[in-house]
């Protein structure tokens, strides 16, 4: 760990990607407003040009500009993050301090999360270039004017959520983390409700906002209790305090409340009720971001709290204190998600429930980390690395196939709607390549080789089984740690999930298209490019995921 530096010029270098996003944000706010506006010096007839307002310059008046700026910003930030990741080693780490307090820490672990966030937001931004209709600038139609006018709003919110998420990734203090979380959350609340003219949009947005703020409030209450207990919200001090004091009734209650806040973000049962409404009300790229980046953000919070703060304290048998609670949560979440998805007729709700199920798989992996006998410190770190790496890999590749599936629905939305299973009907004939991509995403979600989803599920199950079997030999399977049964539940759930994922394939290839839906879909080059990128990622990381696994392992190692 390198020495911390106070706010200074080094910081700009260290926080390059974040500043890129910030500058991009300012540009989107300012650039479209550049015009020949002037400023009259009071009391004089002298007018000074100050370039804001007035008649906008032709070059900046295009409603496409904010979208392009956002894509450019996200691409640049992602490029910087990946550049860092390729160069860094697990031992690297740079602290940003202010007044002796750790604010941020830049290392591989935080950067890989930023890569996940930025990749998801970049793909969603590319896709949104087509998804948000842009009309002719000369049109007088009120809808067209309205849509052209709000282009900038949409991308500003995307960038603020990117900024919020990266703050969460870097935070070394619970309070900073919470600020970032809220910045990202509020951006997504508005993004979900962005199509407020549609009933589903405003309903989903309102539900998501209300449930989300309650969860945040509960989380915040938990934070206040943590502060009461430890006198600090710094991660390292909380961890030290936990180690010294152990679990008290106050700290346990605080932990429970904080978990609620994050469990909402990853849409774990029973805090998932808003998710299906939010996903189906939001436009598809935004729903994709909720299911990938926003979920990764919640997962990140859980990891910080469960693995950094509370793990040093262990129960009598050496496992973490929260293991039972988390195990039950995982089992309920994955089963509930899958069973609810079986009955969903709306493909976006189906994907939302499948995302709940995936949250269950991830919680099962976290449970496995807690199950490790932390008395054996040498091995504990290794086991944690394996499972955390599996989780990182899972969240990374999830961006491709989960978001990709939402984007395919996004293409259908451009035609008229994707809220019924039958809107996918006949896609195999109408758009063979799109249907193939959707099928790849579905079987990847189900975990069929050789897709990336299989490799990630394999890694997660491997992690759980490795922890459960331990190093010693077993005399019977009953001797394995009970998290082994979570792995069994997970594979059974995968089998159940096969049914609804396959149903999409059947509908696409077997059913006749709905009335009035014939021929190829509306064109949209950029959303198709985004889908193609997702499909390539889904297949490529499944076939040759080795490098990414390495990266994730390094990143997991840097968490310690």
């Amino acid at each position, binding site marked *: 760990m390198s020495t911390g530096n106070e706010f200074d010029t080094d910081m700009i270098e260290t926080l390059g990607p974040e500043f890129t996003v910030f500058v991009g944000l300012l540009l989107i706010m300012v650039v479209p407003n550049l015009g020949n506006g002037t400023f009259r010096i009071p009391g004089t007839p002298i007018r000074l040009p100050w370039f804001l307002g007035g008649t906008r310059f032709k070059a900046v008046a295009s409603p496409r500009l904010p979208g392009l700026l956002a894509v450019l910003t996200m691409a640049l930030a992602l490029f910087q993050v990946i550049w860092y990741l390729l160069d860094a080693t697990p031992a690297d780490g740079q602290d940003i301090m202010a007044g002796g307090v750790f604010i941020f820490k830049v290392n591989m672990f935080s950067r890989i999360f930023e890569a996940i966030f930025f990749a998801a937001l970049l793909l969603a931004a590319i896709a949104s270039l087509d998804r948000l209709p842009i009309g002719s600038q000369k049109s007088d139609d009120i809808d067209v004017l309205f849509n052209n006018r709000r282009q900038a709003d949409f991308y500003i919110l995307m960038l603020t959520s990117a900024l919020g998420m990266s703050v969460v990734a870097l935070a070394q203090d619970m309070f900073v983390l919470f600020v970032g979380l809220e910045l990202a959350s509020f951006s997504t609340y508005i993004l979900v409700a962005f199509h407020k003219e549609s009933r589903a949009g405003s309903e989903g947005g309102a539900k998501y906002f209300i449930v989300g703020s309650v969860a945040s409030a509960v989380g915040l209450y938990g934070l206040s209790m943590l502060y009461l207990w430890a006198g600090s919200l710094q991660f390292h001090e909380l961890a030290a305090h936990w180690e010294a004091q152990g679990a008290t009734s106050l700290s346990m209650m605080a932990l429970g409340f904080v978990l609620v806040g994050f469990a909402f973000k990853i849409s774990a049962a029973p805090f998932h009720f808003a998710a299906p409404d939010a996903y189906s009300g939001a436009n598809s790229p935004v729903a994709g971001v909720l299911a990938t980046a926003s979920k990764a953000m919640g997962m990140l919070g859980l990891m910080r709290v469960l693995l950094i703060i509370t793990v040093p304290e262990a129960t009598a048998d050496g496992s973490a204190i929260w293991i039972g609670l988390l195990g039950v949560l995982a089992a309920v979440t994955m089963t509930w998600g899958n069973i609810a998805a079986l009955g969903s007729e709306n493909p976006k709700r189906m994907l939302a429930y499948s995302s709940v199920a995936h949250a269950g798989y991830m919680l099962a992996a976290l449970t496995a980390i807690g199950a490790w006998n932390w008395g054996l410190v040498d091995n504990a770190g290794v086991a944690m690395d394996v499972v955390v790496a599996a989780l990182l890999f899972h969240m990374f590749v999830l961006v491709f196939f989960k978001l990709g599936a939402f984007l395919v629905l996004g293409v259908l939305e451009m035609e008229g709607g994707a809220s019924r299973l039958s809107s996918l009907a006949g896609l195999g004939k109408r758009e063979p390549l799109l249907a193939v991509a959707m099928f790849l995403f579905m079987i990847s979600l189900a975990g069929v080789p050789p897709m990336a989803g299989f490799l990630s599920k394999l890694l997660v199950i491997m992690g759980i089984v490795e922890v459960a079997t331990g190093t010693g030999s077993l005399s019977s399977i009953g001797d394995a740690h009970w998290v082994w049964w979570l792995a069994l539940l997970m594979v059974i759930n995968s089998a159940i999930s096969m049914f609804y994922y396959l*149903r999409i394939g059947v509908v696409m290839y077997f059913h006749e298209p709905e009335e009035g839906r014939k021929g190829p879909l509306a064109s949209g080059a950029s959303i198709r490019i985004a889908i193609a990128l997702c499909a390539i990622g889904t297949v490529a990381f499944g076939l040759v995921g080795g490098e990414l696994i390495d990266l994730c392992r390094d990143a997991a190692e840097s968490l310690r």
Partner: protein
Amino acid sequence: MNVDYLSMMVILPILASIFLLILTSRLNPAARAKFDAPVRMAAFIISLAMFAVATLMFLGQIGDDGGSGIAFNTFEFQESYVWIEQLGITWTVGVDGLSFPMVWLTTLLMPITIIATWNEKAGATYFPLMLMLGGALIGVFVALDMFMFYVFWELTLIPMFFMILKWGGKDRKYAAQKFFIYTFTASVIMLLGLLTMYFLMDTQTFSMQEMVVQASGANASGVWLGLEVQKVLFIMLMLGFLVKLPAAPFHPWLPDAHVQAPTGGSMMLAGVMLKMGAYGMFRLPISLFPHALEEFQFIIMMIGLVSLVWGAIVCLGQTNLKKMVAYSSVSHMGVILLGIASMQPLGWAAALFMMFAHGIISPMLFAVCGAFKHHYHSMEIGAMRGMAKHSPWLATSMMFGWMASLGLPLLAGFVAELMLMVAYWYAYGWWIIFPGLVLAITAAYYLWSMQRTIFEGGEATQPPESLHGEPVPDIDNSEKIAMLLLAAFTILFGIMPWIFLDMMDMWTRSAMAFLGLGGA
């Protein structure tokens, strides 16, 4: 120069199929129709080339070494590359006496299937899927890495799912999903078993060859991983393979999948895909857990017996020809289990030979079903009345297929059944009454009923109603060629079974000795 033929036989057809699929999907329907014939030709040539390579392998290296190079856990044409280094996953291929007959069978069936369905007008995507299926199947048989094995094991599901879904019968949607979900469920449980085993190993490895060495070393002096664990893992792995096989009571997906699948799909499904189950049993649970096998010997025997009897009885009651053939497959797969449970080198060799023989005979029966459906527009056995008069080629092929399936001497099925009976007698004594009686009675019943439906009816027989007064057709030339080829191979392996039986025998003997299991 050392050419890795096996990897090429896996990768090339899959790549070719993806290329052809992308090529044809870019075209509009009118242009696509023009591509039907060239795509079919390309698929045929590729499959023929694969057959040639497999045959040359046999005539060259594999035939030459007298079987010593392909005994238990020694492999020919072995090649290994790093795949995912970080997890220790490799791409390792090789063939032994267990897998080579299956590889050869796959390459044989691919061109024959394409010939048999030459005139089906299936469209330009059908034959590429067939190629992909072939490549994935060979991948399963040659894979010597646990991860690679599982990848190809699941990959076979995808082309078959689409073949059933796109060209299947009326209930194809139900059948395709049932097929996928049954086998997928079983195989994820198998996957968990494999992973649990992986982490319990002393030296963790995905290489099947090293696993077997490790297991046998521990099994010789004690029980590898402990008996309890071995039993649980054995059940988990066997579950995956029993569903694939399929054995009663895990067979309900099979009749649906078969009845709905197109002819080519059924031929590959019955010919090779079912054998994946039996192959997997030999390759993993039996090779790794001989102690558990001994524990479960009787249960496996009972499952086999139930499959045999149940399949035969249900088969008797069918009025749908394809369903009847499908249930007869369940019955024959029971025979394979009986062979395994006999724990005799002869019984195992019988099981292996049954896999091979059934792999030639059942595609012939399904080809007959397909031709019947194609020309008579019906699957009902009632519609066959007097067929010998109207369509002598079809009737002859059907009779031949049934005779071969029921184990007529000098045909391939007989060799396997005879060997099985002897081994079973050694192992279980008077129990032989059950399989013996079932085989004899069903044989007699089928032949009698077939004779009545196909040949009787005489002058008064009218063409079946399903033709709606069209002239009664006989089968096409392409179908004739396919039938003749399959019949020729059935006779060839009936008269000269030693072509492959030698290597199977070698493999089972060395396997028994290696695993320290009992033998005659």
